[in-house]
């Protein structure tokens, strides 16, 4: 008798033509304007960090998968995406060895030790950044002015507003990215182009960015209304710091964000609230990284909480 083949697998049972490599390629295309902006503003520093980061992420992915006797999956481009995103959230003056160490934490600790792509709880690039921020606080808070000489360092716009108490903001510089900050986070224009591409291609869901940006706007509007001398307006909080790169490329990471629609709304609002609490009342000028990582930790809970009711129950 001929044996029938039954495939038993957990849900979902509906498959789309989307595949991981295709999705990752979309993200890479969306990152191209961001990469160009970072190279334009930070020149050779951006190119070196980017190349080192991509190369070491891919090398660690392949090396660790080989050591753990897993299938080597560098051809799905996820390590490349992690490498680009990791470089984009690094300060320009970061030493090369620290970048390589961060890539090891991102790919090795945050991704491969948890079981590889799809199993990681935290966004790899952000966890790598969080590790470096805790390990080398000096390197991670040394910001170069864009384009100008290497030796000149200057605070980020958020740092200026928080610790320098200057509300003199040049919104045009902030929008095109001519301010100090991490490589890829400064140019709102480039990030918005990339985000728009991802939204049109439906690679990312619109709910998380909408909830995130909307809540940040709301909170900063109220704070600005109450004491306009201390807190800057909503537009500043959207354009400054890592909010746009975080909300477009990291909070929407399909692995570490909720799958349900309600869950995504809660996820975005939660990220925004934590970000604004850190920015307005915390000890740090920027809170996007910790906000997204904290909400990543809540993602399994949000998925369970917002699970749709089965029909008839």
């Amino acid at each position, binding site marked *: 008798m001929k044996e029938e083949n039954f495939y038993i697998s957990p849900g979902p049972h509906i498959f789309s033509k989307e595949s991981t490599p295709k999705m990752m390629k979309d993200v890479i295309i969306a990152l191209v304007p961001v990469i160009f902006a970072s190279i334009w503003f930070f020149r050779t520093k951006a190119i070196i960090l980017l190349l080192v980061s991509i190369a070491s992420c891919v090398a660690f992915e392949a090396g660790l998968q080989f050591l753990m006797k897993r299938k080597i999956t560098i051809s799905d481009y996820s390590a490349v995406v992690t490498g680009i995103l990791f470089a984009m959230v690094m300060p320009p003056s970061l030493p090369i060895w*620290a970048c390589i160490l961060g890539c090891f934490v991102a790919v090795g*600790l945050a991704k491969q030790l948890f079981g590889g792509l799809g199993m990681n709880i935290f966004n790899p690039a952000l966890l790598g950044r969080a590790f470096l921020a805790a390990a*080398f606080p000096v390197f991670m808070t040394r910001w170069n002015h864009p384009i100008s000489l290497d030796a000149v360092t200057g605070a980020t716009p958020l740092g200026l507003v928080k610790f320098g108490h200057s509300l003199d903001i040049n919104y045009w510089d902030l929008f095109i990215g001519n301010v100090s900050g991490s490589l890829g986070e400064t140019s709102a224009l480039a990030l918005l182009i990339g985000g728009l591409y991802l939204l049109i291609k439906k690679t990312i869901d619109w709910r998380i960015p909408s909830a995130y940006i909307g809540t940040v706007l709301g909170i900063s509007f109220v704070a600005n209304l109450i004491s306009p001398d201390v807190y800057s307006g909503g537009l500043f909080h959207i354009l400054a710091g890592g909010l746009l790169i975080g909300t477009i490329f990291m909070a929407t990471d399909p692995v570490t964000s909720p799958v349900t629609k309600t869950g995504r709304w809660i996820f975005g609002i939660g990220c925004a609230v934590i970000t604004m609490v850190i920015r307005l009342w915390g000890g740090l000028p920027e809170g996007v990284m910790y906000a997204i990582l904290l909400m990543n930790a809540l993602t399994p809970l949000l998925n369970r909480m917002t699970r749709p009711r089965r029909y008839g129950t």
Partner: protein
Amino acid sequence: MDSLKCASCGKELCKGLWRENPIFFQVLGMCPTLAVTTKALFGFSMGMATTFVLISSSLVISCIRKLIPPQVRIATFTVIIATFVTCADYFLKANFYTISKELGPYVPLIVVNCIILGRQEAFVSKHGVAKSLLDALGMGIGFSAVLVLLGSIRELFGFGTIFYYKILGEGFENWVIMALPAGAFITLGFLVGLFNWINIRLRQRRNSA
């Protein structure tokens, strides 16, 4: 004692070192393990203090175990343990004041260290004096060894030294995270992973042989 065989003595002593290591296998006493191992010396002091308390209380409790009413055994154990913890605390304060200050509240907190109460409940209350002492010694050494190992790794990366002896040169940038709680969790995770990996390899080799 004629009932004691040398082989079983060795077994009671050695099981705490590797096979039933209090940290790697039983995952007990996590509070001091994670909190005081910022430097190797602190880990060593903590290990010694805990070993002293473990051995002394095992000795006393194994002697009087038949006299303790089972309803109040935990309270009795705790009082006996607390007595020796107070001794250890005062000893450290009198002779090694700086270390005592660095260890802070974690010396008095040995009273609630799960390893000590766990050994009394699981082993000492069922065994004689000699076996209990060997068990306590093995567990104490196993605990101390892991604390020193954890402390050495964290001190090496966090400060570039081991037992204050400079290992890594001037070019080394201290990893601040290793001196923070996150560094303790990461290091302990890697060590437990290594422990399990070695055990799996040993089992495989034994099975194939």
